[in-house]
């Protein structure tokens, strides 16, 4: 059973509502960080692992969905595209013109399949947060964005070293052009840390944090809609509580739509940054 269902059922048992007889507060039903630590269905007892959880299932599901999407939309490509093929072509053109070309130029076209796969994969993992029954964005667990960001990090370093050789690649990344020589000893440590430490970290954290915060926000509004609904409060208070509950559920609806936008945006931002990093590695000194 997932954490959000546990919270709600616990609240239902205790009959926890506003103006209720047992005077319980919202903190007793409000969802917390426990949402993102679902109980494992199978644990292998390995240290530092969380076992086979909802995240694992949704991850496998995302992989299958993305594979199925690209398989079925491109299997029998025609000159006059059908519905599925049109969507696929639209996606390809979007990623090529908005992500690959601005970040890497024409030389980046060979990375187009990678960027497409990353974009669709991340988007599907994010959207798992809105699918009824799933309701948990896979990327809200730091492990998944971290692995993807690490992959991109290794990739752009390898590309840079292969294009320019180790020495000149590192020099181009670490020595800022256009600064006087005497100030370089002060600037180079900053460049090293910002390019090789903060860059991959922020790349992963941005996706993780937006997904975690967005999902938590939705959960709070949903739980609020439940907590604020109390017909037994008596008289005016009942009306007030129903009004509050309606507002909370309305906010839940609005933010669900907003969250869908954020999910697409964050997937786009992730691949956009990946393409900028790879583009810089191809180009060398900046």
């Amino acid at each position, binding site marked *: 059973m997932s954490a959000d269902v546990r919270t709600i059922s616990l609240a239902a048992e205790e009959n926890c509502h506003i103006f209720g007889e047992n005077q319980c507060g919202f903190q007793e039903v409000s969802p917390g960080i426990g949402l993102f630590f679902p109980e494992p269905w199978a644990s292998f007892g390995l240290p530092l692992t969380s076992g086979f959880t909802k995240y694992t299932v949704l991850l496998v599901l995302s992989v299958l969905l993305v594979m199925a999407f690209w398989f079925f939309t491109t299997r029998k490509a025609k000159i006059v595209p059908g519905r599925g093929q049109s969507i696929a072509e639209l996606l390809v053109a979007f990623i090529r013109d908005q992500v690959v070309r*601005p970040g890497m130029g024409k030389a980046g076209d060979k990375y187009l399949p990678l960027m497409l796969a990353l974009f669709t994969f991340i988007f599907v993992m994010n959207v798992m947060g809105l699918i009824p029954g799933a309701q948990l964005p896979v990327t809200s667990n730091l492990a998944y964005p971290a692995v993807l960001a690490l992959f991109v990090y290794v990739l752009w370093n390898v590309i840079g070293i292969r294009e320019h050789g180790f020495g000149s690649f590192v020099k181009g990344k670490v020595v800022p052009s256009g*600064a006087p020589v005497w100030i370089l000893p*002060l600037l180079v440590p*900053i460049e090293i*840390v910002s390019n090789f430490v903060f860059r991959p970290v922020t790349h992963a954290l941005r996706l993780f944090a937006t997904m975690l915060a967005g999902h938590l926000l939705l959960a709070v509004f949903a739980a609020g809609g439940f907590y604020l609904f109390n017909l037994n409060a008596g008289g005016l208070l009942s009306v007030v509580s129903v009004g509050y509950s309606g507002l909370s559920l309305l906010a839940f609806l609005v933010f669900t739509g907003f969250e869908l936008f954020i999910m697409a945006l964050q997937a786009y931002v992730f691949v956009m940054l990946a393409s900028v990093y790879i583009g810089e590695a191809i180009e060398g000194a900046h």
Partner: protein
Amino acid sequence: MSDRQGAARNSGERNVDPASVIAYLLAGMAVWGGLGWLADQALDFQALFLPIGVLLGLALAVYLIYVQFIRS
């Protein structure tokens, strides 16, 4: 479409990572503030070189952003 973007790219107009500005600021404060903290530990000050280092790192990061993104 591709020609226009190719031209934009050649004229020096291209995507930069907007987060790298924040990464520079954080890295500047972390590196020089960290060195300041180490100096404090070594020389038995409570907090003398730490704020100096943080401010120095911030100033250097702002200068670095100026050199990298504005002047070039």
